[in-house]
């Protein structure tokens, strides 16, 4: 499917989501309540068939935290970017997609470790690179009093 | 025959005579034992050093580099330097080891090759013990070495050592069967177990050629099983560095580690020496049965030199295996023995017995 057809189909099916095209890849921002069922649909519907989760990243914005999913279909070879925002910076909780794509389990552990977003129903929510004495370094307001001297 | 002038029997006889005439028989025996013991100790020490150096140089040649070159001319003093360093290292005993067994293991492992060397004929007349069951003695005594390995693995109080020791023990016990059976094939051909007799019988030609097909099969099986016995070459899973550190001798340091290390190389020498004696003629020069002129020329080289040339040939072959092939997994090692080498060996013994009975050998 081309990018336009994809966006058209998705915005018709999910009017609550905000779509954007014209950039490199089509983007869709889902509210976090509908995220899991949307992702399930993306994988199981035959003419969408997004079976390859390329990358899952977390981004820190001033008001909220965002998780960005880059998805590709190995059969149709179309690409989609899905975004989902947390409520605010203090309660950063989202649904996990690791039951849909197993690789997400480890990407989400990394996001939890570095950004502090917890994922519901995750199999093994542990920290990855760092241990519990660290905060969440990738956040913009991260202050490390021991190791970093601010002038 | 010209090589009789290289016979050591007159020398040992004259020493014995000299001692008997001057001191009591008891003291003679004790002095003779001491002389033999010291000679063997020196031999083991020097030969061990030489083999370690040879291994490093051979390994370097295969890997297109030079090996030790700096310590002494051509790196000859390298191994001596290494052993001096090992002697000076601190003997670290880990915390909760079984002290008696931990200290006993390296001694068992080093005494066994010492015992086995005593039956090897280096030259005519240069053999310490000449039983009429020499071959049997060798296989029996070398089996005791596995106790040392198992003790080392168990007493170290370390998971890695235990795994390594168990693997190694299983491997050695299995391959002893193959070693023993291939030696028995040649005993069938020779008709005797006495080691000096076996060498004498190869006067007209080495057993490898006399016994043709079964002897060649037995030789191949013996070399493969011998490499596995000494935990070398493609069968060195027990001490594979890239898997579980150093296997059963992880927790040993200093002189105790040196014992394990030295024992491995002396075992290599023993396997090669047995291969030489039983298949390649021991100290017998290379004779063709009827070409008198050729034989006389061959006889000018002393038996001692022939023996060591052949032993080094087999040692080089075994070292070549180690540096070329990848490692086998433990279940593949044991499968090789029990499902392939053992049936081949049994069939080979039958074949050899048939050939001997029908007289189809030279």
């Amino acid at each position, binding site marked *: 499917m081309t990018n336009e057809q994809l966006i058209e189909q998705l915005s018709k099916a999910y009017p609550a989501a905000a779509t954007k095209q014209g950039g490199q890849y089509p983007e869709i921002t889902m509210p976090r309540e509908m995220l899991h069922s949307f992702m399930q649909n993306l994988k199981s519907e035959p003419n969408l068939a997004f079976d390859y989760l390329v990358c899952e990243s977390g981004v820190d914005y001033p008001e909220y935290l965002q998780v960005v999913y880059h998805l590709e279909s190995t059969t149709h070879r179309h690409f989609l*970017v899905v975004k989902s925002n947390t409520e605010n910076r203090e309660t950063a909780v989202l649904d996990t997609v690791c039951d849909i794509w197993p*690789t997400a389990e480890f990407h989400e552990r990394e996001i939890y470790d570095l950004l502090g977003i917890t994922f519901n129903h995750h199999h093994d929510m542990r920290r990855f690179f760092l241990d519990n004495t660290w905060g969440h370094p990738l956040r913009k307001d991260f202050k490390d009093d021991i190791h970093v001297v601010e002038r | 025959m010209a090589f009789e002038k290289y016979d050591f029997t007159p020398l040992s006889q004259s020493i014995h005579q000299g001692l008997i005439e001057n001191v009591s028989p008891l003291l003679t025996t004790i002095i003779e034992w001491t002389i033999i013991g010291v000679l063997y100790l020196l031999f083991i020490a020097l030969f061990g050093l030489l083999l370690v150096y040879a291994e490093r140089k051979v*390994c370097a040649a295969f890997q*297109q580099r030079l090996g030790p070159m700096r310590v002494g001319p051509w790196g000859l003093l390298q191994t001596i330097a290494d052993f001096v360093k090992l002697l000076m290292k601190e003997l670290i005993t880990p915390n909760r080891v079984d002290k008696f067994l931990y200290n006993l293991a390296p001694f068992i492992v080093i005494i066994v090759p010492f015992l086995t060397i005593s039956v090897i004929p280096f030259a005519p007349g240069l053999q310490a013990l000449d039983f009429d069951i020499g071959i049997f003695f060798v296989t029996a005594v070398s089996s005791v070495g596995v106790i040392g390995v198992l003790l080392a693995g168990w007493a170290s109080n370390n998971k*890695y050592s235990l795994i390594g020791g168990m693997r190694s023990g299983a491997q050695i016990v299995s391959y002893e069967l193959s070693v023993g059976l291939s030696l028995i094939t040649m005993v069938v051909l020779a008709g005797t177990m006495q080691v000096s007799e076996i060498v004498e019988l190869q006067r007209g030609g080495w057993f490898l050629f006399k016994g043709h097909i079964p002897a060649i099969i037995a030789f191949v099986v013996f070399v493969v099983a011998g490499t596995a016995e000494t935990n070398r070459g493609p069968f060195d899973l027990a001490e594979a*560095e*890239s898997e579980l550190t150093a296997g059963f001798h992880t927790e040993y340091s200093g002189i105790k580690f040196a014992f394990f290390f030295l024992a491995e190389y002396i075992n290599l020498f023993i396997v090669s020496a047995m291969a030489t004696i039983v298949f390649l003629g021991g100290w017998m020069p290379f004779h063709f049965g009827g070409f008198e002129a050729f034989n006389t020329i061959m006889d000018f080289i002393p038996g001692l030199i022939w023996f060591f040339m052949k032993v080094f040939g087999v040692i080089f072959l075994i070292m070549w295996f180690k540096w070329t092939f*990848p490692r086998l997994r*433990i279940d593949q090692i044991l499968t090789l023995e029990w499902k392939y080498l053992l049936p081949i060996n049994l069939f080979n013994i039958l074949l050899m017995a048939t050939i001997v009975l029908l007289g189809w050998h030279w």
Partner: protein
Amino acid sequence: MADIIEKFVTTDEIKTDEYLVNMGPQHPSTHGVLRLLLKLEGEIVHNVDPHIGYIHSGIEKMTEALSYPQVIHLTDRMDYLSAHMNNEAVCLCIENALQVEVPERVKYIRTIFDELQRLASHQLWWCASGMDLGALTAFFYGLRDREDILDIFEETCGARLTLSYSVPGGVMFDIHPNFQTKVKAFIKKFRKILPEYDKLLTDNIIFQNRTKGVGILSKEDAIAFGVTGPTGRASGFSCDVRKHNPYSAYPYIKFDEKIGTDGDCFMRWKLRMDEMWESLNIIEQLIDNIPEGDHAVKMKGVIKLPEGEFYQRVETARGEFGVYIVSDGKKNPYRVKFRSPGFSNLFTINHIAKGWKIADLVAIMATFDLVIPDIDR
């Protein structure tokens, strides 16, 4: 799987006939600082739990304080065996964002360097894996041949390992006058050496017994776990970025994407050897036809990307490498995320190593070709 992990977390429930062994962080065959917590029963592996982070340098956080050309120097250090491909990914991302068209000469040079880098990476993989499996001589043969490629790199850009040769807009220096002759001589020599590599290991019966049928990864699992590169292609997952989303000079050349069927260690091994042959073919197609022109386009002194998000994918020696840049119009990026191939590849090991022995785990790790700084970033 979930219940086994739960048992890990509450350790008082471990059965008594299983034991935990640590493989790493200092271990000769984990290719870097990786700690594998193995749950073993005798020799059989029941669970593999990788613990990473021993070489975590916070590269993604560092990029937020650096300018765009400085980010390129950080990418060298991540997967240091595919340094040029990492550099190229960031440069392409920046160039696409700024809509800058690089000269044809630059595209050819970048692709030739990519393929030379791929050859060097696979050579190091071959020699280190040979050593892991016990063929210690293989280590020296691979390194000896790799020296030629590193000499070629050094002549042109001054560095052997961490190249930093691509910059936004082109390459840092023009190629050395000897470049073409040296590369052609190297290709001729290496075509004779590759069959030796096959004779030494791939055709060896001991090696085949160790790797055939071991650690099978099915195609569905490869896609589900996001395993790319030769590891994924050996399972049948067609994921070569050079074919599906070509960049630089890849649209101009013909080459095959080798895909395997079995997904076992032997197939992964064979596929990397085949990729080396393909790289030689690609370089041969390009080396004589480098167009004349500039080696870089003049860019502004301070590079500022427009506001927005940009994602670029390249094919490194290990798999698909992705760069995701979020920019807010300033001269430092707002967020850079690197999608590293090793990250997805590593975590399949638990799935495929269950039930195999420790020696097989070493064979599986060897054929996965992991570089730990790539995973830890």
